[in-house]
């Protein structure tokens, strides 16, 4: 049997397609061309499907719907060929006690745990599943999980329901677990955006399974291979920012010419996410194609970036060119609080806008201050 006719470990794919697929996955997780072999070997070595449990806490199901839009691999490939999706309330067949049985069996068999939605600290009963409160479920099953990934800004940081006055006391899963009475070193990989992006999740899962460790994370628990650059750094409208060409009002001539959205509220300069890189809905489009970035991958963005219709303060807008790097960093730090400042000051105001920023190396890669403790 010729080599490319051998049955593939990924069912439904020919040998050749399998290797192509491995290269694709390797590129997705930033493993590079050499990584492709490693990815292929790891998948071949796997005798079992990795078991994945997906829990929904305080959420809108947007992240599940976003996962259904994933294209790398597609959801059908994912659930039939890549993983054992043991528990997902939107997709699974069983309900009630029988669903709970799947949940328990999955952790007994060794599951990765993906969590969508926040955990309420003030009104714990504002999310319950099978009569158990989400916060209690998180603490009980964290030690049993092979790894925990928070998908979407709710599970990472609390998101919209954490907007002041945060009626239910919504918070991110990691912060909840490390809180009073919790697990001090609990480690959660955060994949924020609203909704979370299906391809980010697949890439991170593959990274963990293939590399056997968690990816390097930034101060907010986000993998650097995905969240290392700002929207502004990678924006297709960036040239218009530099040229001083702005949308002044929705629907105006500038908007028809697809100029920069900064003046109508774009939060791209303060937002770390790979949106411009892997885009959305099969890479069809991304937010900036249609409207200003809201900064949804940042902790507390609803409170810090409101009103969303107003421009970020203290960003020097180029008439033609020439801005001071230091000013942008300090200006943003004042606006968006300590967490973002840690990410920004002296680290990120570089890239194309500020060649030779404070670090003098032109890198826009923030060196993370890891506060998420040891790798699990």
């Amino acid at each position, binding site marked *: 049997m010729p080599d490319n006719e051998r049955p593939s470990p990924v069912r439904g794919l020919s040998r050749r397609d399998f290797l192509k697929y491995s290269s694709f996955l390797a590129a997705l997780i930033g493993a590079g061309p050499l990584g492709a072999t490693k990815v292929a070997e790891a998948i071949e070595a796997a005798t079992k499907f990795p078991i994945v449990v997906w829990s929904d806490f305080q959420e809108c199901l947007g992240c599940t719907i976003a996962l259904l839009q994933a294209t790398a691999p597609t959801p059908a490939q994912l659930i039939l060929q890549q993983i054992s999706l043991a528990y997902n309330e939107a997709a699974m067949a069983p309900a009630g006690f029988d669903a709970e049985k799947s949940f328990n069996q999955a952790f007994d068999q060794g599951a990765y745990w993906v969590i969508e939605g926040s955990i309420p600290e003030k009104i714990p009963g504002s999310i319950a599943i099978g009569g158990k409160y989400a916060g209690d479920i998180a603490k009980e099953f964290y030690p049993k999980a092979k790894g925990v990934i928070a998908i979407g800004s709710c599970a990472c940081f609390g998101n919209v329901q954490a907007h002041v006055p945060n009626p239910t006391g919504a918070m991110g899963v990691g912060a909840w677990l490390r809180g009073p009475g919790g697990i001090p070193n609990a480690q959660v990989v955060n994949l924020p955006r609203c909704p979370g992006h299906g391809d980010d999740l697949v890439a991170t899962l593959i990274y963990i399974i293939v590399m056997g460790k968690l990816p390097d994370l930034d101060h907010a628990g986000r993998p650097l291979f995905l969240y290392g650059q700002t929207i502004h750094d990678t924006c297709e409208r960036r040239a218009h920012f530099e040229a001083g060409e702005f949308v002044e009002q929705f629907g105006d001539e500038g908007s028809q010419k697809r100029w920069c959205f900064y003046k109508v509220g774009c939060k791209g300069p303060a937002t770390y996410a790979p949106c411009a890189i892997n885009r959305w809905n099969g890479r069809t*489009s991304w937010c900036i194609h249609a409207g200003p970035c809201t900064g949804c991958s940042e902790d507390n963005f609803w409170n810090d970036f409101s009103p969303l219709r107003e421009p970020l303060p203290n960003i020097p807008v180029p008439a033609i060119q020439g801005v001071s790097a230091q000013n942008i960093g300090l200006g943003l730090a004042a606006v968006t609080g300590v967490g973002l400042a840690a990410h920004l000051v002296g680290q990120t105001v570089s890239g194309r806008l500020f060649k030779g920023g404070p670090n003098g190396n032109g890198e826009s890669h923030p060196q993370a201050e890891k506060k998420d403790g040891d790798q699990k």
Partner: protein
Amino acid sequence: MTKVVIDPITRIEGHLRITVEVENGKVKDAWNTCTLFRGFEIFMENIDPRDTWHYAQRICGVCPNPHALNSATAAERAMGVATVPDNARLVRNMLDATQLGYDSILWFYILNAFDYVNVPDILNAKTTDPELMAIQAQVKAQATSGEVNFLSNHYWGHPGYVLSPEANLTLTAHYLQAIDAQQAANQACAVIAGKFPMIMTMAAGGITQLPNEPDVNYYLDRMGIVKEFTENVMWPDLLAVAGAYPELATFGKGVGNFLTWGLLDEKGQLPENRLFPRGGIFGGQLKVEKVDPAEARLYTQHSYYEDDMGKGQKPFDVGQKAIKFDGYPPIDGPDFPTGKYDWTRAARYPSPAGKDVPMEVGPLAEILVAYVSGQKDVVKYVDEVLAAIGMTGKPEVLVSNLGRVAARVVKARINCDYAAQWGMDLLANIKAGDTTCFTEPNLMAEGEGISGYDAPRGALSHYCRVKGGKTVKYAAVPASNWNLAPRDDMGVRGPVEEALVGTPVADPTQPLEILRTVHTFDP
């Protein structure tokens, strides 16, 4: 008498527990409990009214578009914008078309199909089709891996599954195709609105920018795929399932009152002149009454808020602040819920007889109101369904689980028929030189705005009061407040509770029929 509790109800949008009392093989009484609360009406107070739609679409990640639309509309009306430019109307319709296309497919296959399609049984199917054999092999690999997966632990042995192994295999293949088809609808959304879910092109006053010609062409291409799937796959599947499960028409009747605010604006943007018109049906009479979202009423005696918060007040006068939560009714034990048992407030509407009554909302309500109003597309498709199941001339059989399943697919077909037209109209406007799509609202206005426009799962209304550049009051009455209402202060059951009464339960340890009835409401 047997107590059966299903928690969580899976394959739905939110978090739901159903408690039923079974006697002599039938449901005698039922309670629904939503087990999720986030407090949107609380934290949306005091925000910039131009931003409300960003927040509001996070109420539901399955149907963000109609939340964004209702929220923008309520805010712009509060700020003095009565109608948006016609191009904005067309784009909003186009976005809702993608929403309805994707959501119908999502519901019919991913959330609903496993109630009728026995997936493990496909291993017994005889086929020589290589694609179907590949699906068999994949399911077999999962089933024999020894690991728990998304098909494990379900009631697959239940006698209620009647399709042949070959039919099960075909429908499973369509389930997988449906995943691709729903992606096409959302790609059509994304090319106009940046992404789905959580769109970016809405604005209080219109839309942020006009799609260009390549955007619209891509939209038309993707929606073509959706239309083809809806016509050639989902429609025959509906008729096949309806034919195989005739008992679908025999239970799940519900409260007999139906409400829709209408959806898909025509030129002029009058709510009574929509593609699916606004209206109410009361007491099973096939007669359409005028309705108004300002007249919705809320009750809270059995909801986790202070009793006096909702005693039939209008949404602007009721909030979510006075929370009174002291735990859920116990799952174990013989007792049934009596006091407070639901985060959902009970929405009611004044009937022509002057009584606040529960109303069923959703595609069935929209289709019945349109059918009685003589909407020609609705009449055509509904008659086709009735003919296929041998019920010509008997639209009353639709007031059942069958009607809810069929109405979703009928609605999807009409929606897909019109999507291309809106895209073509938009291109014609642009070519004729009309590029207006936004009116700047008066941020410092003082006023109230109300918007009622149905989401895929039913009547949705938003209420926004503005003063000094801030929202000072915000309320939303989504479909769940209607369909998943608990009992009201008068002790009357909500629509899902009422529809469950009479549902046969062959085996209380495998309550498949309860899932079927609940799922028809797409909760």
